[in-house]
C-alpha cells in the first residue's frame, strides 16, 4: 500500500517538500549539537531537561489518545468509529515516533543509546518507558496496517489481530502512566511529587489527542473525497469536552492540596509558574494563557450549540490543543526544575537551535503522519469508489 503515498497532487508534494526542508534544517542543527554537545540548548545545571523532554511528554499524550477511538469501537461496538480508528492509530504512530526522536535528541551520548538494552535496569522508569513506547509503536503499526489492508481487500482482518487490539487499549494507558512515573517518583521535586500526575497526564492526553484528530478530520474532509463523518467528529468532541474538563478539575485538585497544605516545596513551583518567584517569571503569561485557553475551550465544548457548530468546534479544538501544549510542553518540565532543590531560581528559556531541532522533529512526525494519512485516505476513497 506504500505506493499510495507516492501518487499525489502538487499540493501534496508541495507540503512534503516543505516538511523535508524543515527536517533538513533541524537535522543540520542537530549535527551541530552532536559536535558541540547539549550546550547549544538553553538547558543548565539546574534545569537539566527542557524543550525536548517537554515535547516528548506532550506527544506521549497525543499518542495515547488513539485508544479513545479503539476502545469505543472494539469494546463497546460503537460502529461509527470504525470509519476513523485508522486515523487515530496512524496519529499514534506519528506521535510515538516523535516521542522516541525527542528522547534521542536529548541524549548527551546518543551513540550509546543501546546501553539501555545491553544493561537492562528494571528499577529505572526510563527502561520501562523505552519498552512501552516501542511496544506501542509496533502495536499501532501492525494493527493499523493490517486492518487497513483488510479493508482494501474487502476481507475481515486476520484473527490474530484481535488480541493485539485488545492489548493496545491498556498499553495506551500504560505509555502515559509510565511517562508520568518518570517524574512523580522523584523525591526532591515537589512539583511532580503527586499521585495525580499520571491521571492528569491521561486527562490532558485524551483532550489534546482527540482535539488534534478532530482538526485532522476536518482537514481530510476538506482536502480529499473521504469524509470522516459528522457523527464521528461530534462523538470525538464530547470526549474532548469531558477530558479537558477532567484535566482542569485534576489541576484544581492539585492546586488545592498544594496551597491548603501550605508546604513550601510544593507551592514554590506553582508560584514560579503563575506569579513568578524572586522576580523570575518568564512563564507567567504563558501559564495564564493556558488556563484561559482551557477555560474557553470548556465553555465552547460543553455548550451543545457551539460544540455542534463545526467552525466553532474547530476553534475550540485549537484552544484545547494550545492550552494543553503550553501546560505540558512548556510549564510541566521546567516548572519542576525551578526553583532548584537547593532553592536557587535559575530560569530556562530554549535557544533558537534547540527550537529548530525540535521543529525538525515535529516536521518528521508530520511527515510520517502525512504519508500514513495519505495511504489511509486513498484506500478509503478507493473502497468508497468500488462500493458506489
Amino acid at each position, binding site marked *: 500500500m506504500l505506493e499510495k503515498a507516492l501518487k499525489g497532487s502538487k499540493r501534496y508534494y508541495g507540503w512534503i517538500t516543505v516538511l523535508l526542508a524543515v527536517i533538513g534544517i533541524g537535522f543540520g542543527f542537530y549535527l551541530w549539537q552532536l559536535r558541540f554537545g547539549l550546550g547549544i540548548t538553553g538547558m543548565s*545545571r539546574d534545569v537539566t531537561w527542557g524543550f525536548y523532554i517537554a515535547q516528548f511528554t506532550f506527544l506521549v499524550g497525543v499518542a495515547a489518545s488513539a485508544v479513545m477511538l479503539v476502545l469505543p469501537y472494539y469494546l463497546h461496538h460503537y460502529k461509527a468509529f470504525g470509519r476513523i480508528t485508522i486515523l487515530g492509530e496512524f496519529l499514534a504512530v506519528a506521535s510515538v515516533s516523535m516521542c522516541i526522536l525527542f528522547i534521542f535528541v536529548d541524549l548527551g551520548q546518543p551513540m*550509546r543509546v543501546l546501553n539501555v538494552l545491553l544493561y537492562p535496569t528494571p528499577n529505572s522508569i*526510563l527502561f520501562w518507558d523505552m519498552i512501552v513506547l516501542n511496544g506501542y509503536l509496533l502495536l499501532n503499526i501492525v494493527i493499523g496496517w493490517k486492518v487497513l489492508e483488510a479493508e482494501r481487500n474487502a476481507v475481515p482482518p486476520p484473527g490474530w489481530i484481535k488480541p493485539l487490539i485488545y492489548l493496545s487499549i491498556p498499553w495506551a494507558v500504560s505509555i502515559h502512566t509510565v511517562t508520568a512515573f518518570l517524574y512523580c517518583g522523584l523525591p526532591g521535586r515537589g512539583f511532580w511529587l503527586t499521585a495525580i500526575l499520571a491521571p492528569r497526564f491521561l486527562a490532558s492526553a485524551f483532550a489534546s489527542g482527540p482535539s488534534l484528530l478532530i482538526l485532522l478530520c476536518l482537514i481530510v474532509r476538506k482536502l480529499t473525497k473521504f469524509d470522516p463523518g459528522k457523527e464521528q467528529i461530534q462523538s470525538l468532541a464530547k470526549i474532548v469536552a469531558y477530558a479537558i474538563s477532567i484535566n482542569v478539575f485534576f489541576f484544581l485538585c492539585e492546586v488545592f492540596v498544594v496551597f491548603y497544605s501550605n508546604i513550601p516545596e510544593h507551592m514554590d513551583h506553582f508560584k514560579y509558574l503563575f506569579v513568578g518567584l524572586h522576580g523570575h517569571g518568564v512563564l507567567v503569561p504563558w501559564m495564564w494563557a493556558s488556563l484561559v485557553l482551557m477555560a474557553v475551550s470548556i465553555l465552547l465544548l460543553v455548550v451543545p450549540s457551539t460544540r455542534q457548530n463545526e467552525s466553532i468546534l474547530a476553534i475550540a479544538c485549537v484552544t484545547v490543543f494550545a492550552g494543553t501544549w503550553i501546560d505540558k510542553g512548556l510549564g510541566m518540565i521546567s516548572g519542576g526544575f525551578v526553583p532548584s532543590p537547593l532553592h536557587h531560581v535559575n530560569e530556562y528559556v530554549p535557544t533558537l537551535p534547540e527550537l529548530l531541532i525540535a521543529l525538525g522533529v515535529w516536521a518528521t512526525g508530520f511527515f510520517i503522519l502525512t504519508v500514513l494519512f495519505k495511504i489511509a485516505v486513498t484506500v478509503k476513497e478507493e473502497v468508497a469508489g468500488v462500493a458506489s
Partner: protein
Amino acid sequence: MKRSRRSFLQLAGVSALGLGLKPAAGLFAASGGHGRAPGEKVLKSEKALKAKQWAMVIDTRKFESAEDLEPLIEVCHKIHNVPSMKDKRHEIKWIWEEEFEHAFPTQELRFLPERIAQLPFLTLCNHCEHPPCVRACPTKATFKREDGIVLMDFHRCIGCRFCMAACPYGSRSFNFRDPRPFIEEINPDYPTRMKGVVEKCNFCAERLAVGRMPACVEASNGAITFGDLEDPESEVRALLRENYTIRRKQALGTGPAIYYIV
C-alpha cells in the same frame, strides 16, 4: 520471473535482517567480555581502605569563612580535572559552598545564629544509603558500590540526565560541552570527562584504592572526618555519638552519608 513485488521485497527484507543480525549478535557477545585466561587474576591492593558504608562528618564549627573552604574545593577540582566553565549554566562542581538556607532549605531559616547565617557550608554528593539517582539510571552507569560509594561509570553513561532530575541535592553536573579546554592544568593521573556525560564527587575512590583518605579530608586540617558508618569503633561513629548532627533533607529517606556538626 514469476514472483510478486511484495514477496520479492519480503524476501529481500528477511535476507537483509539475517545479514545484519550476525554482527549485531557479535556486538552483544563482545560487550560482556571480562575474559581472563587461566592463572590471570584481578585483585584489590592490600593497602586499599575498606568499609561497609563510607561516611563523612563535617565539623562546621572549625570553619570560619569561605576562605577556609576554598583550598578543599580547589584540591578536589584540581586532582579530578574538574573544569571551570565560563558559562554558569554549564558549571561543573564536585564539592562547593552553599549558604545554610540553600544547603538546608527545609530547616528553620528565620532565626539563625549569626555564625551559621554567614557561614558557607560545604556541599557534595551525599553518597546516600538509598540513592534516588541509582534507582533512576537506565543503564547502571551510576551505581552503589559495596562500600557505599555512589559511583559514575563514565564509559556507560548515555547522558539522559535522569539522575540529575532524581538527585534532591543538586550534586550532579552535566558536561554540556567538551570540558578539556576549560581545565587550567590537567592532572595526568586522573582522566578528564567527555561531553555528554554526567559527573559528580566519587568520594576519592581512586585514593581509597591505594590507602589514602579523600583529598578534601586531607586538606581540612581535621575539620572533616571520614570513616565507616557501620563500624561502631570508627572515628565517624565516635563523633556522631558525641555531637548532634544534621543531614540534608533527611525527610526524603535517602539516607545521606554526609553529617554536619553545626
